[in-house]
Structures are given as C-alpha cells and as structure tokens.
C-alpha cells in the first residue's frame, strides 16, 4: 500500500520536480514522522508517517519500520532519533498505553526544516561515564572540535540532531533510551521531550 503511495510520490516528483535535486544541490526529506500510538490489538507501537506537503499517511509497526533503511533515510534526523528512542523503549517493554488508538496518537512536533544537507556533525565515539551515563562525542567535521554531551541530553538539543546523519541520529535515540532504562527514571512518557 505505502509502496504504492511512494510510487505516486515518485510520479509527482518526476512531473513537478518537487522532490528532485534542487538547483543548489540539496535534497529534501520527503517523509515525516507524524506521531505514534499503541495498537492494543496488535500489541505493538505503531508509527504514523506522512508524505511531506501531501495528505497521505500510513502506519507501520515500529519494529518493522526500524528495519527499513529505505524509509528511514527519507526521514529527518530528529524523527529518526525519536524512532530510535521509541523502538528501544518498546524493546524493553516501556510503552505508553494511554495513547491506545490512532485517535489518541501522540503527535510529534513538526520541524519545518526538511532540506537534506551533508551532516556537519558526526558521532565520533560513545562511552559510559562513571555514573553509567552514555556520553556521545560529536565531531564538528569542518572545525576539528569536539562536543561531549550525555546522549540523553541530545533530546533537548534538536539543533545538534539537525546536524547529524539520519542513521547516526537513530543510534543516538537508542543510546538515549538505554540510559533512561538503566536509570529507571521514566517519569514521563517516552519521546515527550521532543513532542
């Protein structure tokens, strides 16, 4: 079904050039994470993806979405960070069951930036500090400088996520969730820092 929709999107972009490479060399993320909810029948978390600027949406089990690199690479790093966070939470049975239908879906904040550009930060290494917090060391490619930040705090720094590669942002989401789980401090529903 959704692949059919992507074909439609492909036709649109071929016709109008909306998603094709723009004149200044940039590309666009043409999918967007709209929200997520818990499907009590399937007993899994569902992610709702929309096609940017179109009224087309489709739901996927999160477990299925995290395996699909084709879709993931069309999502903004902030979206993939949230997906990583949610996926690892679900893996550890930490699920917000209050949003148990599409109608009660938790919406993800809309980030207007949809231009895909070359990442200017990259995750150089990760390690655990003495308190068991995962620390991420980001490398500013062009400056030769490093930023050390607890992975969990990346959720409060969307600007840093913007500068990451989509898959690295997703890995950071997993790392942030892991710190949550280890400290057992899930005082608020998952993903709310960015929603």
């Amino acid at each position, binding site marked *: 079904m959704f692949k059919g929709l992507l074909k439609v999107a492909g036709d649109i972009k071929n016709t109008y050039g909306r998603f094709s490479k723009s004149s200044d060399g940039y590309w666009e993320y043409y999918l967007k994470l709209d929200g997520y909810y818990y499907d009590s029948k399937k007993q899994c978390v569902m992610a709702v993806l929309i096609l940017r600027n179109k009224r087309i949406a489709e739901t996927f089990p999160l477990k299925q979405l995290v395996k699909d690199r084709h879709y993931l690479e069309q999502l903004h790093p902030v979206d993939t960070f949230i997906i990583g966070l949610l996926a690892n939470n679900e893996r550890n049975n930490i699920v917000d069951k209050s949003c148990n239908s599409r109608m009660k879906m938790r919406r993800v904040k809309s980030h207007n930036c949809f231009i895909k550009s070359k990442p200017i930060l990259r995750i150089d290494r990760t390690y655990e500090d003495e308190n068991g917090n995962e620390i991420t060391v980001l490398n500013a490619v062009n400056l*030769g400088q490093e930023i*050390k930040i607890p992975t969990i*705090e990346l959720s409060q720094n969307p600007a840093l996520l913007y500068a990451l590669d989509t*898959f690295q942002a997703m890995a950071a989401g997993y790392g942030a969730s892991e710190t949550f789980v280890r400290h057992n401090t899930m005082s608020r529903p998952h993903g709310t820092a960015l929603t």
Partner: protein
Amino acid sequence: MAAATFEQPSLNHVLGLLLKDAGISAAKLAERINIPRATISGIVSGRTTDPRASTLEVIAKYFDVSVDQLLGKQPISSLHQKTNSANLVSIPVIAWDKASVWPQVLSGIDANTVESITVDEAAHGKFALKITEDAMWPQFQPGTTLIVDPNKTSKNRDFVIAYLESNDETVFRQLLCEGKRRILSAINPDFPSLEMQENDKILGVVIQTRSNFST
C-alpha cells in the same frame, strides 16, 4: 537547554603547551621577544586573561602560530598530535574468530602486521573488534569499532562480547540478567535472544564504540 562542552583550550593552557614544546621557560620567552617577564608570567599562570593585542601578536609570531590558535579558537595540529601522543596507546583490532582466544592472540601479536587503533587511556590487556553483522543495528552499525575490556566484570544491560560454545561462535550482544538466567539480546528484532549456557562465557565488556571513520 542541556550543557554541551566545547573543548576550547584557554590562552594560558595553549601558551604553557607551546613553551613546553619549545623547551623554554616563560622568562626566556620574555627575554627573547622583549616583553616584561611579569606579562608573560601573568598569561601563563592565568592571572592575565585578556592581554593586549600587540603582546599576543608578538608571542604568536615567535611560535609561528596565528593569534586565533594562540587563543585556542583554532587547533594547532602539530602541537595537538604531540601533546596527545603522550597518553595514547595502541590496541590491536582482532578477528572475531580469534576473540575467544584473545590472551594468546595478544601475547603473540606482531604490532607491525596487525591493524590497531589508538586509545587515550591505559589499555593494558584490552583489544578491539570491528562489527561485521547487523545484529546490533541500528544502534551499532557495521564497521563500528568496539573497544573491549576483558577485565571488567559484566553486569545487567552491559554490551558484551560472548563466546557460545555450542555454535563455536563469538557474538556481540546486550547482556540481560533475569535471576540466574543470562540472556544475550540483540537490538535488531530479526535476531533472536540467546540464553547463555553453562559453558558459554563472557569475553569482555564493551567500554567504548568508535564510528568507522575514526581510528
């Protein structure tokens, strides 16, 4: 907003390193560039944080660096390499099928023929492995280097390297302890969880991961 720490060295730190690198004292520098000794001492000690531009220019010219580099706004590549190399040690990147016999591998290793990476801490007895499979994707992508500490005691939720005797296989998984059961869990949902048997053993705990572009 969370705190992100930029590792920008201060002026006195940079000047201290330059002096050390050149092997001269603050007094000698003052004499050579014809600036009062107290001025240089003040900068090196950190008492003077905002010296005159003319002073900075003379010091920068003497050490053949830019004023921005002296102020720590830009790295000094040669100095960076020299100052860091003192604390760096090399550890070998070994093959997965050799990980189960890592003590023999480490003792018989030829440093010139084996791939190695540098780490910034005392790494005696540690080794590294490169991820080749998708079991821990997307948190750990293929190509990522894992630095393993075989002497660290593993605990619940640690990422570990384990040897499974029944399959004669070494795997990278997350250790989950449920009572007496020890389960090796993959991040990728396609890979099933494995329960550790009596003869299976943990070879080490992953203490650091490095992305494949930095070795």
